[in-house]
């Protein structure tokens, strides 16, 4: 039970800052990362009610430059970067295999048609980069992984105010940012994005400045938060987790990601023809456990239309109830009652449309 991270785990520039704050460090996708600093639930509430910060430096930023950048991304990504007109605008997209399976989900930031930044998941970074390189032959582009950067997500209703308190010099450039928009402040990138369902910023800074920024934020009253509550927050917010809710063997059409697919025009992208031929039989939905307990990934769900499976489950600190994301037969409707098999016993649950909670408010009942 004791955590003894081996020396071979990779460390972010903030690893020692976490240790100083008493973090419980665990192996996350080969990185030594904080799971919590004492109480995962208190950290969760800090983000929903005030402000919390996460070290997300294990994720990889990749800078894309060159005259072919836009045409390359329009081929590579299932969402369409041509939607991005304003410098700094961000877009969520899937990276698909030719058969429609999901290689990763990512955020792409547009600066100019010849300059973008892509941020991908930690566990998939190497395979993503290899895939992106392999698709780049016919395009005049360069891909530059930025392991020289650290990334901090500051999230919560007070996150922006506290960030400006900690880094007053960055206020002017970031004050007018709309959601899903970013701006450079010197060599920092400040983005109004996140993975919690709360307002806030994600800040990319040179690795050597990370510990100072972290400590200024902490002094401004931002709670250090581990990856444990990052998962319960994103689940409440109805956001997918790669590797759990979808992977290379799952279609985005059965993972609640149809809204991210830009299919309506002539543009061809990798995976498009496969998706057009698919007839999904399952849908992605939320579950609320009607009895006391905790929902978990891989639990079987029985409905009047056949069975399905939970892909992500937890105990929601905001709702004080078991919640889950699940893949169920398409005929199941919101409001239906289903049964979840927990340790051999069936427990009643209700089908709901995610999100469960965002911006401090409960959104389902």
């Amino acid at each position, binding site marked *: *039970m*004791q955590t003894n991270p081996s020396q071979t785990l990779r460390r972010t520039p903030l690893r020692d800052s976490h240790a100083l704050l008493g973090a419980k460090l665990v192996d996350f996708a080969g990185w030594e990362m904080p*799971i919590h600093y004492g*109480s995962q*639930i208190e950290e969760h509430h800090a983000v929903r009610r005030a402000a919390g910060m996460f070290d997300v430096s294990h994720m990889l930023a990749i800078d894309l430059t060159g005259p072919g950048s836009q045409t390359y991304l329009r081929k590579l990504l299932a969402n369409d970067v041509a939607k991005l007109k304003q410098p700094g605008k961000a877009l969520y997209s899937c990276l698909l295999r030719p058969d429609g399976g999901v290689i990763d989900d990512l955020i792409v930031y547009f600066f100019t048609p010849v300059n973008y930044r892509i941020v991908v998941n930690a566990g998939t970074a190497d395979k993503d980069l290899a895939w992106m390189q392999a698709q780049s032959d016919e395009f005049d582009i360069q891909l530059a992984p930025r392991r020289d950067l650290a990334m901090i997500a500051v999230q919560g209703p007070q996150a922006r105010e506290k960030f400006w308190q900690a880094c007053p010099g960055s206020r002017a450039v970031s004050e007018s940012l709309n959601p899903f928009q970013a701006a450079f402040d010197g060599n920092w990138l400040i983005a109004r994005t996140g993975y919690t369902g709360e307002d806030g910023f994600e800040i990319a800074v040179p690795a050597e400045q990370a510990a100072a920024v972290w400590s200024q934020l902490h002094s401004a009253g931002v709670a250090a938060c581990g990856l444990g509550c990052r998962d*319960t927050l994103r689940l409440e917010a109805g956001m997918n987790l790669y590797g759990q809710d979808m992977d290379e063997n799952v279609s985005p059409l059965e993972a609640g990601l149809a809204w991210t697919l830009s299919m309506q025009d002539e543009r061809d992208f990798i995976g498009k023809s496969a998706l057009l031929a698919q007839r999904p039989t399952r849908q992605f939905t939320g579950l609320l456990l009607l009895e*006391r*307990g905790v929902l978990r990934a891989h639990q079987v769900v029985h409905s009047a239309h056949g069975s399905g499976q939970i892909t992500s489950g937890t*105990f929601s600190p905001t709702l004080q109830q078991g919640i889950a994301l699940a893949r169920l037969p398409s005929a199941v409707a919101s409001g239906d009652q289903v049964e979840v098999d927990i*340790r051999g016993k069936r427990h009643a649950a209700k089908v709901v449309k995610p999100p469960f909670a965002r911006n401090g408010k409960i959104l389902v009942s």
Partner: protein
Amino acid sequence: MNVPANLKYTKSHEWARRDADGMVTIGITDHAQEALGDIVFLELPETGRKLKAGEECAVVESVKAASDIYAPIAGEVVARNDAATDAPETVNQDAYAAWLFQIKPDDAAQLNGLLDAAAYAKIAEEG
């Protein structure tokens, strides 16, 4: 590490206490609650259930994971701590006060086969 000297322990991180009335009270150790993190759900055995030593008989769930609880010795369940079921976080606050269930032991001498505080502390430290 908090390992009271007056209790007996198992390798699977339960504690057991012989009470004045001959019953045995069972819970999870401070080390176990620490490792589990925030506890949010308890499933405790029905009173009247007869347990064998080492039998899976309860579940403690934290936000992170579900953990099985095993009967340290054989006996019949005579009480369960419904206050803890209603407020599972009390197990995090004081794992030795927030007991889980109580049994009438088949043979109280089985307690002698369990670990003492020093032996358990050593196991817990080694992880």
